[in-house]
């Protein structure tokens, strides 16, 4: 357990110990926050890899999770600020609408899948299919990402400070990908593109939001869609 949290902030928090309380109580409490309520700070201790921790948040609450979580933590988050002081299982922040999710450790597969908005920050590495089918979410990964990341990404930004695995951006639509390290291979219809001033500006904004101060936007390469698969052509069949 991370003991760095200040005592005064703990006092204002509602603490849910998942070693003794069912998950249902946590999620019910998160869903029962009235708009404009004051008791919006939550702490979850002993998550012990539980699935669906803090899912379906629809108010601007803060949730500090002290430990690692299983599948779908902060799923469909809409306005909450969730921090996991550990690692996250598959599908963290899946389909996020808005808000912020920060993973202090690593994230498993499908991080930020189909996310529509908000910011997902992964301070460790992310496994395969990070940002799969992303639809507007911004994802910043301090470490590396696995294969097939941003598959069919529609919109939003994926920023990777480390390396990317095979088939980055396969069948990409309009999501913008920025990788600082090496890309093992690009997927179908994904190409390197010019890093223009508007991209540098956006990168600077995302890095600042993610609390990254020691990396320059110009260190990244940009990848995007070649748009050759946007309308079916039989001569592109071998690309599918």
């Amino acid at each position: 357990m991370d003991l760095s949290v200040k005592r005064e902030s703990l006092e204002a928090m509602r603490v849910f110990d998942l070693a003794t309380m069912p998950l249902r109580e946590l999620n019910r409490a998160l869903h029962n926050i009235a708009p404009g309520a004051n008791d919006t700070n939550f702490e979850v201790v002993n998550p012990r890899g539980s699935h669906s921790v803090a899912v379906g948040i629809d108010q601007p609450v803060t949730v500090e999770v002290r430990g690692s979580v299983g599948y779908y933590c902060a799923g469909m988050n809409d306005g909450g600020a969730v921090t996991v002081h550990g690692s996250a299982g598959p599908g963290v922040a899946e389909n996020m609408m808005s808000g912020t999710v920060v993973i202090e450790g690593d994230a498993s597969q499908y991080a930020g899948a189909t996310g529509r908005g908000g910011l997902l920050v992964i301070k460790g590495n992310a496994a395969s299919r990070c940002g799969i089918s992303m639809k507007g979410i911004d994802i910043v990964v301090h470490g590396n990402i696995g294969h097939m990341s941003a598959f069919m990404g529609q919109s939003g930004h994926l920023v990777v400070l480390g390396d990317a695995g095979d088939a980055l951006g396969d069948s990409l639509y309009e999501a913008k990908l920025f990788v600082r390290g090496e890309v093992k291979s690009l997927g179908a219809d994904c190409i390197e593109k010019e890093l223009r001033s508007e991209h540098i500006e956006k990168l600077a904004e995302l890095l600042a939001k993610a609390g990254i101060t020691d990396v320059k936007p110009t260190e990244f390469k940009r990848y995007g869609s070649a748009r050759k698969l946007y309308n079916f052509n039989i001569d592109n069949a071998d690309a599918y």
Partner: protein
Amino acid sequence: MSYHNPYTPPRKSATFDDYTLAEIRRAAATGIYDIRGAGTKRKVPHFDDLLFLGASISRYPLEGYREKCDTTVVLGSRFAKKPITLKTPITIAGMSFGALSGNAKEALGRGATIAGTSTTTGDGGMTDEERGHSQTLVYQYLPSRYGMNPKDLRRADAIEVVVGQGAKPGGGGMLLGQKISDRVANMRNLPKGIDQRSACRHPDWTGPDDLEIKIMELREITDWEKPIYVKVGGARPYYDTALAVKAGADVVVLDGMQGGTAATQDVFIENVGMPTLACIRPAVQALQDLGMHRKVQLIISGGIRSGADVAKALALGADAVAIGTAALVAIGDNDPHWESEYQKLGTTAGAYDDWHEGKDPAGITTQDPELMKRLDPVAAGRRLANYLKVMTLEAQTIARACGKNHLHNLEPEDLVALTLEASAMAQVPLAGTSWIPGKGGF
């Protein structure tokens, strides 16, 4: 004596028939496979191959119009806090806004509501029109997650996790660029006018163990209120049903190969999946083996056209059915009224299946503003309601003749088969015998 060779008429190949030859030429000319809407057009064993026995000396019928034959069905009673109750076991299958016009979706909602049943969203999200006009709305959770958001999840009456559909088990979808209007593009977070591909696998789960966790997440997000359906295409109905139950489904929706699609390759529609008739008994068997028959409800779809089809599906063990193609026909699809326009498109009323092209003369499978105006959602909704009520009445008529006071009391024993194939698939005796292929006896 001279020999005169008598005339023999030209003989065409059964293997290379006219349609096959035309398809070869079409493929050679265009370099693309045929994409179309609807379900299989090939003849497969179906409900037409079954007959009800009716009452006799050994059992007595119920009096038509006087003795009650209940048609209500409750869906989602396993885990959901708020299961849904329908007046009729005939529901409207998932069809997307995008594939269908806004007016068509509204008509489906209106008709279903008048008839006391549910309608279902599709691969494109929920529109205000269909939510507003559907008293009971099932929200599909699809691999593409187009339009998926927690607000709509919460304002739905049930959630349907779509794993597959009968027209294309194992396949994804394709909405061609000509149907991606500004509104459709906005709902799907895609540029206007591009082909919109729908994935065949969910982006964040794979397999039954993950599905169980995914269902739990959806329940947590919706505070365990909504019934959760799992829809599968007719491929391995015994195992798919068992795994859906294991994963925590409240309802299993099983769609045979006659079930329609908005747009899929013809080769897929015609060659992948099983007929609806072949799917029901294995699914029911799985539920019975798990002690979950009638506890997890089974909805059957794919080629349901009449109250007789409904009654037969229920007699084989289903709790409800879903209609898609038939509902579209009821609101005006393929209506001969538009024959001259169908002919301009190189087809004829009854055969039009280029739903993906967005040129539907009936204004249903289109996003063209002018064509869409042709469909009056109020009148079309009324036609659908009439059709649903007729089918319900037909099913009741048959059930009463079999002596049943609820449609769910129909049973396989009420049925016989006309063909060996249907007998084997439906596991009811060949008419006039006690023989079921594979079951012994004669």
